[in-house]
């Protein structure tokens, strides 16, 4: 396990700012408007079925999204240091939250502080689902605010699913790299669109030899 030092944290904090500054960016307003209308367009093509539209969207975008995250995680260097080198310093479950926070900042920049809370780690012994869990809280949500589609129309789907999948894939690829044998699964368990006072993405790390525990996870039954 890599030793976490203040040095690596400091480097990570500088690196996330450098990454965000140097990468091409796009307005969040424009992104959320396009995201909404892409879902509307798909749903309209499916006779107004938003639930199916979200499912198709996620299934279609998963492979590209995974490729994109993999390229960032394993192909990016900031200040001459490979991101995977930094990742290897945060292999401890609790310390890994720093890496997730850092990745969220790298994608959303300073706005990430308006949208996301600090990532929390819940050890398997304290988790309702009996597996190591990460909680990502959303203080506000750019993805569901612009919609006029009532939540019932989405059924078991959630507008924030793409964010949940991105975080899920990022953690899965990181855990694979760290040679931790987990099946990572994430769901948007709380959602402003459904009337909750905050949004929440739960990420569960299921040991591959205990995948049957997934059967007991009530969230996985009611949320796609």
């Amino acid at each position, binding site marked *: 396990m890599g030793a976490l030092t203040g040095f690596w944290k400091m480097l990570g904090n500088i690196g996330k700012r450098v990454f965000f500054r140097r990468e*091409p960016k796009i*307005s969040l307003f424009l992104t959320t408007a396009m995201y909404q*209308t*892409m879902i509307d367009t798909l749903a309209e093509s499916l006779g107004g079925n938003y639930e199916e539209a979200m499912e198709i969207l996620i299934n279609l975008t998963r492979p590209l999204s995974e490729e994109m995250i993999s390229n960032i995680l394993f192909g990016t260097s900031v200040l001459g240091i490979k991101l995977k080198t930094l990742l290897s310093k945060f292999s401890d479950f609790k310390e890994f939250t720093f890496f997730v926070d850092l990745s969220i900042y790298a994608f959303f*920049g300073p706005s990430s502080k308006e949208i996301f809370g600090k990532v929390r780690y819940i050890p398997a012994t304290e988790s309702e689902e009996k597996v190591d869990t990460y909680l990502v809280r959303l203080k506000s949500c750019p993805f569901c605010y612009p919609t006029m589609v009532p939540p019932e129309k989405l059924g078991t789907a959630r507008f924030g699913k793409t964010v949940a999948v991105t975080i899920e894939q990022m953690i899965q690829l990181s855990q694979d790299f760290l040679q931790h044998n987990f099946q990572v699964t994430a769901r948007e368990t709380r959602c402003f669109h459904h009337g909750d006072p905050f949004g929440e993405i739960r990420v569960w790390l299921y040991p591959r030899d205990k995948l049957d525990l997934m059967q007991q996870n009530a969230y996985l039954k009611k949320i796609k």
Partner: protein
Amino acid sequence: MSKEKAPSVSEHLHDPEFIKKIRDQVLQDIEYIKNFKSVAPKAKPVTEWKNAKMVKITTQSIYPQVYGFLMKNFNRAETIVRLREMGRRAVPVFYSIHGQRLSKKGSLLEVLREIGAHSRERATIKEQTKKNGIIQKYVLKKYKCVFCTEGYPVENTDIPYCYPSVAFWQQYYNIRSLYLGNMKPRLIYVDVTKTAENDDDYCLYSVEALE
């Protein structure tokens, strides 16, 4: 994929019925913006975050798949209609969450420059034609197209990749124009002439005044 021709609009660009259809859609979108009420009000208006941006690469896994889905399920003409419609619809949503933009005055060129600032595209104006001091027609040369550059390539297609973009540019201006009521030209039509084939290439759009 179907190779049938897309409906050509150039010949009826000045047909009163065609213009009326565009105008009615703009007025409908203005009503949408005025009546917008989020169904998730606790999600906090995005307007509170000034100049919020995100890294573009993270957004690029979605559009190619939506584009591919439409191409697979509809013929060429219908795909183009749906792609344009997608770009058009994004504008009222954009103004709904970023309403202060709506009342900002500006010329045609200033408004188009404003879009570039949001999308981080770099546009220059070519071959401008004016009549009585009002722009009638010009070609927009656009680098770093939000759809065409740094994205995942889609093969076997002759449908310009950035159709949503032209409809977005068109509706962005038209809504502002009819909302403010004193802009010249009043309405424009934007179409794709050429799309970028690599990251150093550019897209060309023809912009024409309708009213």
